[in-house]
């Protein structure tokens, strides 16, 4: 008897040990809708993968130690100068390790793009209403992933103990300090005393390399598992109902395209990492708490926070010898409000619209003018904050007064979201009227509940969920 082909033998061997043939077959045949906007989350996933791969290489050379050493490496303008071992090892990695600089730069570009992909993905999910029941928990997991990614990125570039990131650490210390009642305790425990202390670099290393990546991996796994369990949402269209999913099977088409997209994503990151210099720490110099450079900004995903700090006028709350210092409001409070609003949005919208049904069809943004307008207004608010963080660079580049720029932003922070929101609302109403689509500014758009599983109700649901 001739031996069966290798794949059959492998499948049989595995099944004898796991008995998972049925489950695996279902998994291989899962259908995924292939609209381009559904692939944005994958972009974030692949950026994370590259971050892990390049990051592991970097950990082989980076030493998160505050011990002071004297640099004797190949970069002449730093030779003979005292610096921390962390900074020295980062310089060594950049100049004297094969592929060190390109790995470092790919890693940093991947971090910027990881966050950017998450934000675009979040926007896609928001504007298509894909956070509605049953996906509220997955939405909250996603917001958590975004926060973890932001913190991990900040921790990552602060590890190098260069002048620019050290300035950022100083600012974060002061924001923690500004929290009422417990601020001084939190800051002292986090940093091991007064700023700068000597513990923060090694603590950030463990947080950046172990704690946060582990949390991200766990949450990401749950995030994807929930998507598989729920099946992905899809846009309405021919044959596309709330009760089915139309697309490609996982094996081979979807898997092949996913792998292809992974390589394309990696190609973009490698091109950026080799062609565009990022974070040239050898020019910034080692961190010194008494020094600072002009044009000090955090990476873009923290830029909105820095901009809020700049735009805020010099107001403080003082009473009975206690005070709530100025940075608390744009630093801690705004951040808390931002993420609080993001977390609770699915529940707020469900409460406001009275729509508690299950939804598996994506809506076009124009079909929900109010939600779309509020989303655009919120995005424009953070855009003003982000530009505020670059106020001095903008002022110098355009030849403007940085004071005038910031004062105009104090006005813009209110006016721009209102104008953008109003304009978006009008645009959505206009576009959906032109399309002949039902625009439901506040109401739900079909959907199902368990109660309506009678055949008649299902037919009714199918006809309202389909195109009109």
């Amino acid at each position, binding site marked *: 008897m001739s031996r069966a082909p290798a794949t059959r033998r492998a499948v049989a061997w595995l099944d004898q040990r796991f008995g998972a043939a049925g489950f695996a077959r279902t998994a291989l045949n899962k259908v995924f809708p292939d609209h381009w906007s559904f692939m944005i989350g994958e*972009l974030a996933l692949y950026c994370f993968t590259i971050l892990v791969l390049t990051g592991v290489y970097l950990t082989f050379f980076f030493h998160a130690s505050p011990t002071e050493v004297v640099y004797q490496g190949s970069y002449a303008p730093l030779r*003979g100068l005292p610096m921390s071992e962390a900074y020295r090892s980062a310089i060594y990695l950049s100049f004297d390790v094969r592929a060190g600089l390109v790995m470092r730069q790919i890693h940093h570009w991947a971090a910027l793009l990881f966050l950017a992909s998450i934000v675009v993905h979040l926007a896609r999910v928001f504007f298509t209403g894909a956070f509605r029941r049953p996906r509220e928990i997955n939405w909250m997991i996603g917001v958590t992933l975004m926060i973890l990614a932001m913190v991990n990125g900040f921790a990552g570039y602060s590890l190098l103990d260069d002048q620019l990131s050290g300035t950022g650490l100083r600012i974060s210390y002061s924001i923690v300090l500004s929290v009422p009642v417990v601020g001084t305790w939190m800051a002292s425990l986090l940093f091991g005393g007064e700023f700068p202390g000597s513990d923060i670099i090694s603590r950030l290393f463990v947080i950046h390399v172990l704690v946060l990546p582990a949390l991200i991996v766990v949450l990401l796994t749950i995030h994807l598992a929930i998507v598989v369990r729920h099946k992905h949402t899809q846009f309405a269209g021919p044959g596309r109902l709330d009760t089915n999913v139309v697309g490609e099977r996982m094996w081979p088409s979807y898997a092949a395209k996913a792998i292809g997209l992974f390589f394309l994503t990696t190609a973009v990151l490698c091109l950026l990492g080799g062609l565009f210099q990022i974070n040239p720490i050898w020019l910034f110099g080692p961190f010194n708490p008494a020094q600072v450079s002009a044009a000090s900004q955090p990476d873009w995903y923290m830029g909105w926070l820095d901009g809020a700090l700049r735009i805020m006028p010099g107001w403080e709350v003082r009473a009975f010898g206690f005070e709530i210092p100025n940075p608390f409001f744009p630093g801690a409070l705004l951040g808390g409000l931002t993420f609080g609003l993001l977390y609770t949005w699915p529940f707020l919208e469900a409460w406001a619209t009275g729509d508690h049904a299950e939804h598996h069809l994506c809506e076009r943004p124009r079909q929900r003018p109010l939600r779309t307008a509020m989303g655009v207004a919120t995005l424009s608010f953070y855009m003003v904050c982000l530009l505020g963080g670059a106020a001095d660079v903008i002022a110098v580049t355009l030849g403007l007064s940085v004071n005038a720029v910031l004062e105009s932003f104090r006005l813009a922070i209110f006016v721009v979201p209102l104008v953008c929101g109003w304009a978006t609302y009008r645009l959505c109403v206009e576009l959906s009227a032109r399309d002949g689509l039902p625009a439901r500014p506040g109401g739900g758009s079909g959907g199902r509940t368990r109660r309506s599983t009678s055949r008649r109700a299902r037919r009714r649901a199918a006809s309202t969920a389909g*195109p009109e």
Partner: protein
Amino acid sequence: MTERRGWLAFVLAVMAVTVVFRPGPEPAGAAEDVLATGRRLFQLGCSSCHGTDGTGLETPGGDLRGPSLIHSGEASAYYELSTGRMPLSDSGQQPHRKRPAYGPADQAAIVAYVASLGDGPRLPRLDAGAAPLAPGGELFRANCAPCHSATGAGGALSYGRAAPPLNEATPDQVAAAVRAGPGQMPVFGPGVITDEQLAGIVRYVQYLRNPDDRGGLPIGRTGPVPEGAVAWFFGIGAFLAAVAWIGTRAPAREAVGSGKERTHG
């Protein structure tokens, strides 16, 4: 006809005289001539704002038209003239680097004259090439980076002024500016930054005109702001192009049930 030829001859004669008797290069050691030239050029080009004796001028309304130059010294005059900031046509704006209005000899003369007005800082004579680069960088980051940025790209000051980028500054101009403190810049005297230390700073600034950019395109050397812009425009742009190529677009709005589909349980 004869009259016209007469005029022509006269004009040609005048031109010949000026060509033959044009001012030649100053003979060495003729310091008095240099000062005299400097004074003459100063009266012509500078006194309308700085006064005929260099003690400054106010407008009728009491605003300062040009400050006193008594304590400016050689360093300040050299800096302002060689970077073309002076003469300044609009005293309301912050002066910018532009093509110098005077040639090197004339500049030297005016500089000598202004230096002779008082006891201002001299232009340091340094050998920047021999100075150590790394300590110079350390001093640059400690004293200069807050305004000019660690990469020498310049930075914003308040109310529309700016610390200029340093990518065109010559060694003498850097040394002069540090000692003179032009405009909003503070003055760093020899008691705070010695001549040896200044030589190191000058050498480092020259290095910053062409620094090690082995990471690739420096995109302005202004830190995370251009980096974020590149990430969004190039990075996300490329990402979205990739998914647009791989994925499909929204299905056309047709009636339910059209098109061939295989149902799969």
